[in-house]
């Protein structure tokens, strides 16, 4: 057991692309923690998709040893945290495992909304925050303004802000010294019973679930019988150890330490982030605070690209779920798309990542329908139903009231785009501005209450476009509120297409309906006959467009040497059409099912 006084547990708060992963790479290099041969750039982001997108989804800890100027060798645990709004809860739990945080800000970008939100989270968790300005080597680095923003945010003195270039390796030594000096060692309570906080869980093909924990009190070792307190499930510990960042078995994990536990846990949903592990024989009275059962925020239909691949898609989702406790899915059957699943995600990025992993890791093409939030519908008979699929929305005459989720939305923007941002949220997105704060010399934080549904559709891109890329955002679930919503059904050639139905605020029903039918007109190929596309709400047709009949589709040429080539070409053409879904006698391409998301693309 390492002397707790020499342990420092820290995390890093940073916006995407502000250089967090590069900084960790450099620290690993500087402390010679990773063998050069094993060193890959961006070491901690283990998943391919994470590496490609430059984002971190799973919190991945690493332990290093640093010989400080005072002569002591310190154990520093760095917990890498997710950097996207979809994963805020995980960020909070990672922070709960630390005593300090590095606030890393790109000198050319300044403080962004998400960073602010995470900084507040760190303050809530009583973390010692070390502000660091990164990328000081960039020609467009604005160190002065970035410093001002940080001073505004944290109320620190200019001298407390460190300046580094992770890329060039400048200032790393100073940073390590600051960690040792400023971050307090873990507080060891007078408590011998085990309390370990789960801040991450990862599924390993061979070992089962590997749980990342921070031990707050007591010890855990091989052979211990442990329970996860939220659900009381019991397991026997097979192995404990540390991340170097590779897993390295150890004897025991003690109070103050960060490490892993392997205990025959089958899937990550059984070891939920934020849950507390204790000993079955001598459990602690109260779990560590902060555990939440996280629920999906958005839902979308997911169908196999080719109808025969339903079972394969199910297997892929099951495998992903082993490692993704936020993912939910249940079988769904759409008349238009056949058998598939209604899948719940934390947000759009999460949705994108899941789709990409299914396509890449399992080689399956999937059709995703436009995502929506979960609505709560109070029926006239007094019952309340939760609706995750617009197609299953109750009949209008049975509905008493409809509720939709609202979020607390913050946008940080340079002052000159403030008007644009307020307009966007208030005029286009049904939000209400409730406060503005200054953030640095020329930046403001705008806070709104807004319907989540408006934020998941066509919001991020609009915000970026209207602020020339400068504004950034963050949001947090607030509550369900009563809302005047209506279901819009889309009919293609007079046939309702369930997978195209959507829920929209009554004030926007006409505009949305018109945009969607126009978009579908572009996305559905012309057929031999004219195809009306209609939008229906409240029993009436509220918008219509027509796809004109195609006049010709000719195979112009075929001579002696071409026979097999042309026949193959047509076979391919036919294969391609298999990916289209037939509704009535109309073939609908997969992109059409995302028409709702594509609405508004041209407006920018």
């Amino acid at each position, binding site marked *: 057991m390492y002397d707790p006084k020499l342990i420092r547990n820290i995390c890093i708060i940073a916006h995407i692309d502000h250089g967090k992963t590069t900084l960790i790479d450099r620290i690993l290099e500087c402390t010679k923690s990773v063998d050069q041969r094993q060193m890959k750039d961006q070491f901690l982001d283990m998943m391919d998709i994470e590496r490609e997108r430059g984002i971190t989804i799973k919190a991945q800890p690493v332990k290093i040893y640093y010989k400080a100027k005072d002569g002591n060798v310190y154990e520093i645990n760095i917990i890498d945290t997710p950097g996207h709004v979809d994963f805020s809860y995980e960020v909070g739990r990672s922070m709960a495992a630390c005593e300090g945080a590095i606030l890393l800000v790109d000198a050319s970008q300044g403080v962004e909304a998400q960073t602010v939100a995470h900084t507040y989270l760190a303050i809530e968790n009583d973390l010692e925050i070390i502000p660091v300005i990164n990328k000081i080597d960039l020609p467009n680095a604005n160190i002065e303004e970035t410093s001002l923003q940080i001073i505004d945010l944290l109320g620190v003195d200019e001298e407390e802000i460190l300046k580094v270039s992770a890329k060039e390796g400048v200032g790393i030594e100073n940073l390590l010294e600051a960690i040792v000096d400023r971050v307090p060692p873990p507080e060891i309570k007078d408590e011998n019973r085990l309390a370990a906080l789960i801040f991450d869980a990862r599924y390993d093909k061979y070992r089962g679930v590997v749980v990342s924990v921070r031990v707050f009190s007591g010890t855990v070792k091989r052979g211990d019988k442990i329970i996860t307190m939220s659900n009381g499930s019991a397991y026997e510990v097979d192995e404990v150890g540390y991340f170097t960042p590779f897993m390295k078995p150890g004897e025991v994990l003690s109070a103050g330490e960060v490490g892993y536990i392997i205990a025959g846990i089958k899937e990550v949903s059984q070891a939920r982030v934020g849950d507390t592990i204790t000993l079955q024989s001598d459990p602690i009275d109260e779990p560590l605070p902060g555990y939440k059962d996280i629920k999906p925020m958005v839902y979308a239909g997911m169908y196999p690209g080719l109808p025969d691949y339903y079972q394969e898609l199910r297997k892929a989702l099951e495998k992903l779920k082993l490692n993704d406790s936020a993912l939910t899915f249940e079988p769904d059957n759409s008349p238009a798309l056949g058998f598939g699943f209604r899948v719940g995600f934390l947000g759009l990025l999460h949705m994108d990542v899941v789709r990409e992993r299914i396509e890449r890791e399992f080689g399956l093409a999937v059709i995703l329908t436009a995502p929506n939030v979960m609505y709560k519908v109070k029926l006239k008979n007094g019952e309340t139903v939760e609706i995750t699929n617009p197609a299953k929305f109750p009949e209008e005459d049975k509905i008493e009231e409809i509720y939709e989720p609202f979020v607390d939305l913050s946008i940080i923007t340079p002052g000159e785009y403030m008007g644009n941002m307020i307009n966007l949220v208030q005029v286009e997105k049904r939000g209400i501005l409730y406060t503005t704060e200054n953030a640095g010399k020329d930046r403001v934080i705008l806070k709104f209450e807004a319907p989540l549904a408006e934020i998941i559709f066509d919001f991020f891109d609009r915000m970026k476009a209207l602020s020339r890329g400068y504004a950034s955002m963050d949001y947090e679930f607030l509550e369900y509120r009563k809302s005047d919503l209506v279901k819009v059904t889309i009919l293609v050639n007079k046939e309702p297409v369930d997978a195209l139905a959507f829920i929209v605020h009554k004030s926007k029903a006409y505009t949305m309906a018109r945009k969607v039918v126009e978009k579908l007109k572009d996305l559905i190929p012309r057929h031999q006959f004219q195809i009306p596309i209609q939008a229906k709400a409240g029993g009436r047709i509220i918008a219509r467009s027509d796809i004109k009949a195609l006049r010709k589709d000719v195979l112009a040429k075929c001579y002696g040497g071409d026979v097999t*080539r042309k026949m193959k070409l047509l076979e391919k053409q036919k294969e391609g059409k298999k990916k289209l879904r037939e509704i009535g006698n109309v073939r609908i391409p997969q992109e059409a099912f995302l028409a709702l998301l594509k609405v508004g693309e041209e407006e920018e």
Partner: protein
Amino acid sequence: MGGYLYPFMNEVYVYIHIPFCEKKCIYCDFLSIAGKSIEKEYFQSLTRDIESSDILKSSVVKTVYFGGGTPSYVDERYIEKTLNTVAKTSKAFNPEEITIELNPESTDKNKISFYRSIGVNRASLGVQAMDDVVLNISGRIHDAAQAQRAASLLRKSFDNLNLDFIVGLPKSSMKTVKENLKLIEKVNPDHVSVYMLEVHKETPLFSLLKRGKIRLPSDDEMAEMFDFMMEGLKGLGFERYEISNFAKEGKRSLHNLSYWLSKDYIGFGASAGGHVGNYRYVKTLNIKEYIENPFALSYENHNTDCEEFKETLFMGLRLIEGLSIKDLEKRFSNLLEGFLMYISGDELFSIEDGRVKLSTIGLDFSSIAFEKIVGWNCE
């Protein structure tokens, strides 16, 4: 020898591919290369290829067709030599039709009289569009005036002349097709081919379109242009006998009919295809490989009855009059009924006067009709 019948001899139709052009057109997906630095080597291999053909040695040649590429681009003596080789190698040589394809820029009086002197009796000129802007953007190296001059010259020497057009090239419009019809009216050819533009993946046109560097007329405009051409040709006394081919009476292309009627034809030269009995082959698609080994193939197959039947339908239904059910019955007695069931009720096909053919709608949507044939499982 002329005028004899060869009742016990196999009849074959001979295609010869000349894969050289002065410049490649942006839409072209036929095998050809720009320049003719290797024409000598190519024709040597071609001679070897022809001389070694056992089928040719035992057959009577019905037609010969020099296609390309641009046959008029190469030294005409190679054409003569090749034709002589075919004549010498075949069991009997008395073709009714010998066609050569020409492009306007390489058509001149000397060449024409040379071709006539060696027995070529049908000329096929690639006009494509009577519109300089269209020709230029398509990568053609002649203008409309040159096309007109070449067509008139050919008309004087050939009593069987075809003009080729493509409808829907970039920048083309109704004005273009009207000019096309004017030329046809003036030159009065015996045969006209009008192809709706097909965009093939391997062509510069495809990538230009994909990158948004070039635009095509809309589907509706293309359809309108084609229909206008079709009506105009009808008014000038041409009969549409195949999806894209129009002829004056008695002037249908005998050679091309051999493809559509799935007769026995043999192809020489890189990328040339042949069909003899149930055997189908395509020569190598690589000109260099062909020069090294003129017997290299890119495809060969002994068709099953099902495959043969599908190919027969695939080609035969391109003819406006379709195929005789009686004839099909003779060759594919156990498959025919299944096919007629398969298409029954489909508005793209029609069965009339003992023939199966594409309906009027089917002719407009031939791509879909053929897709249906290709997708039929008769094994």
